[in-house]
C-alpha cells in the first residue's frame, strides 16, 4: 500500500514567473523511507509543504494515508508529523514547555502531555536541557527537539525536510541514528536532503529531483547502476604502474584511467574480474597498496542525470509563508 502519493503537482510562485514544481509525481510505500534528493531550489520544500497541507498546489493531486490533502487537510494533519527547516518550535520557551504545549494542542490531557514530553526528552537525550530555553540549544539539540515535537502523537507518516542541513558531522551522525531508530519502529518517512550520502544512508528508495520534477528514482544501487557499472581500481607503487596498467587493460578491455599511483577501468563481472586481477598481480609479483571495486557515488549519479553538478540551480523564491533563513 502506498502511504503517500503525489501526482502531477505543479506550483508556481510570483504569478507563474517561477515554477517551483513542474509536474512532480512520487509515492512512498508504507513502512519505507523515500529520500527526495536534490539541490537547493529543486522543489523539495515545496513538495513537503504541499503534502503536509501547508500549501495548495496550482494543479495535480496528492493523498497521504489515503486522504486527499487538498479536500481534507484536517484529516491529513491527524496522521502526519512534520519537522524541518521551516517548521519550528518556540525559542523563548524551554524544550519541556514546547513539548507539553504541542501535546495539549494534539488534545492529549494535561498529565498525558507531560508524560509524553518527559518520554520524548529522555529518548532524544534532552532531559538535562529540558528546562532551558531552546535559544541556548546547539543546532543538533534543536533539531532533535524539533523532531520530538513532530512525534508527539506517534504519527504513522513523517515528513522531514532537510533534517541535518547546517549540522556539524557529529550532529548529523546523531540525527541519522535517531532517524534510523524511528524507521525501525515502522514509520513511513519522506525525507528531503541535499546530501547524497544522507539519502544513501537512510532511504530505501531515492527520488532525484531537479527543477521541480523527478528525474530518476530507484534504490541507491539501481541509480548507481544506471550511471554505469563498477570500476576496478588498483593503487600501487609508481614503479609498478605500467605493469598494473597492462593487467587492468587486459581484464577490462576498455580504456584505463591512470593517476599518479592508481589505475582504474570499468569492468563487467565485478568480483570475478577482481579475483582475476588479484591472481594476475600475484603472478607478476606486484603488491597492490589498495585494490577494489568502486561503485559510482551519488554525486556521479547526479552529475550524469542532470548534466550538472548538484548545486543551486534556480533560487527557490521566498514565497508567502515560506520564510526564514537556513540555519
Amino acid at each position, binding site marked *: 500500500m502506498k502511504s503517500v502519493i503525489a501526482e502531477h503537482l505543479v506550483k508556481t510562485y510570483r504569478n507563474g514567473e517561477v515554477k517551483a514544481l513542474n509536474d512532480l509525481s512520487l509515492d512512498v510505500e508504507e513502512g519505507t523511507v523515500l529520500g527526495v534528493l536534490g539541490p537547493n531550489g529543486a522543489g523539495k520544500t515545496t513538495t513537503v*509543504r504541499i503534502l*503536509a*497541507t*501547508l*500549501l*495548495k498546489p496550482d494543479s495535480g493531486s496528492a493523498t497521504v494515508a489515503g486522504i486527499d490533502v487538498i479536500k481534507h487537510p*484536517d*484529516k491529513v*494533519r*491527524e496522521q*502526519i508529523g*512534520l519537522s524541518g*527547516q*521551516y*517548521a*519550528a*518550535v*518556540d*525559542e*523563548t*520557551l*524551554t524544550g519541556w*514547555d514546547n513539548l507539553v*504545549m*504541542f501535546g*495539549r*494542542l*494534539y*488534545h492529549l490531557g494535561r498529565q498525558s502531555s507531560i508524560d509524553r514530553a518527559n518520554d520524548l526528552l529522555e529518548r532524544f537525550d534532552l532531559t538535562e536541557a529540558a528546562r532551558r*530555553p531552546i535559544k541556548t540549544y546547539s543546532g543538533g539539540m534543536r533539531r532533535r527537539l524539533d523532531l520530538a*515535537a513532530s512525534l508527539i502523537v506517534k504519527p504513522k507518516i513523517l515528513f522531514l525536510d532537510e533534517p541535518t542541513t547546517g549540522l556539524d558531522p557529529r550532529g548529523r551522525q546523531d540525527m541519522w541514528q535517531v532517524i534510523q531508530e524511528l524507521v525501525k519502529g515502522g514509520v513511513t518517512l519522506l525525507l528531503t536532503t541535499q546530501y547524497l550520502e544522507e539519502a544513501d544512508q537512510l532511504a530505501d528508495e531515492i527520488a532525484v529531483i531537479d527543477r521541480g520534477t523527478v528525474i530518476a528514482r530507484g534504490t541507491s544501487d539501481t541509480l548507481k547502476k544506471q550511471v554505469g557499472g563498477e570500476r576496478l581500481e588498483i593503487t600501487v607503487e609508481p614503479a609498478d604502474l605500467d605493469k598494473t596498467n597492462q593487467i587492468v587493460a587486459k581484464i577490462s578491455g576498455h580504456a584505463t584511467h591512470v593517476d599518479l599511483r592508481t589505475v582504474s577501468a570499468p569492468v563487467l563481472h565485478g568480483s570475478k574480474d577482481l579475483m582475476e586481477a588479484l591472481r594476475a598481480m600475484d603472478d607478476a609479483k606486484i603488491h597492490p597498496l589498495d585494490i577494489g571495486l568502486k561503485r559510482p557515488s551519488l554525486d556521479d549519479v547526479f552529475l550524469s542525470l542532470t548534466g550538472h553538478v548538484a548545486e543551486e540551480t534556480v533560487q527557490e523564491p*521566498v*514565497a*508567502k*509563508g*515560506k*520564510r*526564514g533563513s537556513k540555519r
Partner: protein
Amino acid sequence: MKDAIHDAMIITKRQILQLARVPELLVFSTIQPVMFVLLFRYVFGGSIDTGQPGGYVQLLMPGIFVQTVAFTLASTAVGLAEDMKKGLIDRFRSLPISRGAVIIGRTFGDALLNILVLAVMAAAGFAVGWRPTSGILQTTLAFLFLFMFGYALSWIGILVGLSVKEARTVQSVGFLVTFPLTFLSNAFAPTTGMPRALQYFAEWNPVSTMVAACRQLFGLENEFGATANSWPSQNPLETSLLYMVILMAIFIPLSIRKYNNYSN
C-alpha cells in the same frame, strides 16, 4: 467550538509562559507607557493651562491610556510576523487544531498583556496626581472600553502581521500608522489649534472619540476635546463603540481567512 477555545487558550498560555521565561519582555512593555506618563506630565503639564481642576494630568491620562492600547496593533503584528518568520506558524498549521485558534489565542494573549500594562500605568498616573472622580463603576467601564479598543485593534495587527514579510517592516508600519493617529487627536492637546481640515479628521479619529469617551467616564468635562458640535464629539461613547464593532466585523473574518490561506 469547544476545541477552538481550548486550542486558543493553549496558544494564549504560551504567551504567558514567554513572559515568565523572559521577564524582560514584561518590563519593556510597561516601561515605555510609564515613561510617557512621566514625560508628558512634567514636560507639558507645567505649560498647558487646562482650566480643569487637577491640572493637565487629568486630561493626559486618558490620552496616554488610549495611545498605549493603540500600540497593541503594532505589538500583535510584530509578534505574529516573528512567529511566521521562524516557522512556528507552519508547525501550528500542520497540527490538527481548530481554524483560527492560533490567531485568536494571540489576540487573547495580547489583551491579557494590556490589562497588566493598563494597571501599571494607572498606578503610575495615580502616583503623579491623576484622580478619576466618577466613581468605581464608571472608572471600571472606562477601562473596559480601553481593553476592548486594544482588542479590536489587535485584529488589524493580525492582518498586518500575516501580510508583511519582515517583523522589522511591521514595526515601522505599525509605528507609521499609530503615531499620527494618536497625535492627530485630542489626546495630548486641544484640536482647536489645528488647521480646519485636521480638526475634522481629529474629530472623527477613533483615538479622539476613545479619549473623549474615557474622559467622560473618568468624570471630566469634555471641553478639551473637539470643539465643534460634531456628532462624534457629542457622542464619544457611542461612536467609539461603533468603531470597535466595525473594526472587529471587518478584521476578524479577513484575518481568519488570510490565516487559512496565507501560503497560497
